[in-house]
């Protein structure tokens, strides 16, 4: 076991896989010599050489397109988009190509690639360093979408993603890179070194894709969350005293419906929280699935707490970010219904 931040855990996952599998290559903007703007690939080029870890031109479509070609050859690329906010130029390659390659070629060609990208707000990132674009990927048949919330899961999920034979969108909440964050921006941040989930197993292990985790057992209401919102939900439960069962979804696509259904059928209430904008966000899908599968167990309408339907603002960061107060109000409201 080693004490790791989420950054170190992510780097360790790539290190483990590059060491085990010569077909794993890592590239992206500033990923090589410099080790990434968030240090997630620090030391990999030095250890594995420029053939295995290298810098690319600033061209997201090029990064993903080249990765698909490499995968068609037989490599297992793990590429980085510097910010999820900048993935859109690669959207054609991701949706039209990576996601559909196996299907359209009847398995003749496949795209076992992992596309890592820092996501989420809470860091005064403004409009283009804060977005949570998961819903533009969960809508795409053929992709898997993963969002870890702690160092142990980040490493295990990333190794599982790299080993997965389907394309994986790996969204890393950058607000969680150095420590958990519950939305109380006025308080000092606790580093991962003081958190039990910062104790990361050495070497190879996986956290399976498609499996959620109950992070807090409860009986009153089920909270469906992922990424930073897991800690916000925990804080909201603590502060309202409501016995919420909090589920960290970890993988959004394919979704672990079993865990969700079992919980909501037990609690009879459900709150869905995410940072991304409300309308057509992933919460809409979660709400639909819960309504379809748990209708006769529900004792209150399902509530969504999400980012407002606006671009992510700068100065208004904490009025935008769905913090523990907003989530807490939703918990109270769902219990009163």
């Amino acid at each position, binding site marked *: 076991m080693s004490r790791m931040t989420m950054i170190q855990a992510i780097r360790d996952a790539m290190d483990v896989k590059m060491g085990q599998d010569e077909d794993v*290559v890592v590239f992206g903007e500033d990923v090589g010599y410099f080790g990434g703007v968030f240090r997630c690939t620090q030391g990999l080029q030095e250890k594995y050489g420029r*053939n*295995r870890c290298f810098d*690319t*031109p600033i*061209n997201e*479509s*090029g990064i993903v*397109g*080249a*990765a*698909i*070609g*490499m995968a*068609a*050859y*037989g*490599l297992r690329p793990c590429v980085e988009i510097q910010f999820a906010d900048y993935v859109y*130029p690669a959207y*054609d*390659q991701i949706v*039209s*190509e990576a996601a*559909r*390659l*196996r*299907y*359209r*070629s*009847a*398995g*003749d*060609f*496949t795209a076992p690639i992992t596309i890592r990208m820092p996501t989420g707000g809470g860091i005064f990132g403004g409009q283009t360093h804060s977005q949570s674009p998961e819903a533009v990927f969960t809508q795409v*048949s*053929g992709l*898997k979408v993963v969002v870890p919330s702690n160092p142990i899961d980040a490493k295990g999920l990333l190794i599982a993603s790299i080993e997965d*034979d*389907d394309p994986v969108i790996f969204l890393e909440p950058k607000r969680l890179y150095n420590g958990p964050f519950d939305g109380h921006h006025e308080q000092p941040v606790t580093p991962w070194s003081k958190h039990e989930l910062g104790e990361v197993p050495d070497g190879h292990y996986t956290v399976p894709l*498609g499996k959620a985790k109950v992070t807090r057992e409860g009986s009153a209401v089920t909270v469906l969350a992922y990424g930073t919102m897991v800690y916000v939900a925990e804080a909201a439960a603590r502060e309202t005293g409501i016995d919420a069962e909090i589920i960290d979804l970890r993988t959004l696509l*394919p*979704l672990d*419906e*079993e865990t969700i259904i079992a919980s909501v059928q037990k609690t009879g209430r459900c709150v869905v929280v995410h940072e991304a904008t409300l309308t057509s966000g992933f919460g809409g899908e979660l709400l639909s699935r819960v309504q379809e599968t748990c209708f006769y167990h529900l004792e209150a309408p399902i509530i969504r707490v999400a980012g407002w339907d606006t671009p992510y603002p700068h100065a208004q960061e904490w009025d935008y970010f769905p913090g523990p107060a907003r989530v807490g109000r939703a918990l109270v409201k769902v219990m009163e219904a």
Partner: protein
Amino acid sequence: MSEEQRLHLHVPEPEFRPGDTPDFSNVNIPNAGSVRRPEIDVPPEEIRDLAYSIIRVLNREGEAVGPWAGELDDDQLIEGLRHMMTLRTFDARMMMAQRQGKTSFYMQHLGEEAVSTAFQKVLVKGDMNFPTYRQAGLLLAQEYPMVKMMNQIYSNEEDPLHGRQLPIMYSEKEYGFFSISGNLGTQYIQAVGWAMASAIKHDTKIAAGWIGDGSTAESDFHASLVFASTYKAPVILNVVNNQWAISTFQGIAKGGSGTFAARGHGFGIPSLRVDGNDYLAVYAVAKWAAERARRNLGPVMIEYVTYRAGGHSTSDDPAAYRPKKESDAWPLGDPIERMKLHLIARGIWTEARHKQAEAEIRDQVLTAQKEAESHGTLHSGGAPSARDMFEDVYKEMPPHLRRQRQEAGI
């Protein structure tokens, strides 16, 4: 100071529209044999002129002349002619099958047969093409079973792609033919990535990217050139300039000056322009490029100057936007006629043998077509399983897809 003028937008227009008499006499076509052949390791900046010229081998009399001639022996030449004839006959039968309602869609290669059939002959097993929808000659030049292509076109029970893909979007890894996508330009950068992978693994295989004149305007064209240039990837970047992107003439993609090949030079990629209707020139230039890539000297761009003699697809009527006789006026002629003339001039072919070959090829194509139709066509006979619709979205079918398949009752 000049007098203030109101600005106006320049929108390029082709020289000729329906009703006009096409006249290409002002198009500068260098004589066959007149363009030099550089050393394989020439620095790109020393051959900029080759991006503004046209490498040609066959002259008007059907003789192979100049420094790019002499690459092919008699058997290879006859085989090349047969491949082009096969592609044209295949196209004609499939166009007719579409008109008969046996399939929904087809795209022919009329006039462009030399490009893909000749190019394929410079590749070896293990190399990988990333084709567009207009390079079926890459398969036919490898004697790929026509019946399999037809099964795909008919979306029948033997369709290798299980009915999931629009006709002609073939995929054949074993034949170095990457899965065709409807999204233009996407495969160009993938070809570069494949070539990078070959280099990463210290392999000896090379990749070939394919794009049309119109799609060079796509962002992925730029991405491809940047990546190929940066990493010196062993890739041949092919631009098939057939003058037309559906109804849009090449000037809309390129503007009024320069050439597509010239774009490669801005990236330090050696770029050559070749007569796309000259099988011998296509082969020679492609071979030069392949050798350069195999020797780790980096990418090469080739612009094939040709003409899309047929409609864009079975859904297109070119008479709506260009003169009906424009393809007849095209100065580079017909690739099959020019090759035939060369073989006759060479004394290894006759009119009688040509007629006989035409009959043989027609029989081959008809036999394949009968066999394919015995497995069904789009609206009749055997069809792919509806159950198959849910397979291959992922390697393992996730629970939500299993549920949807049950719901579909299949």
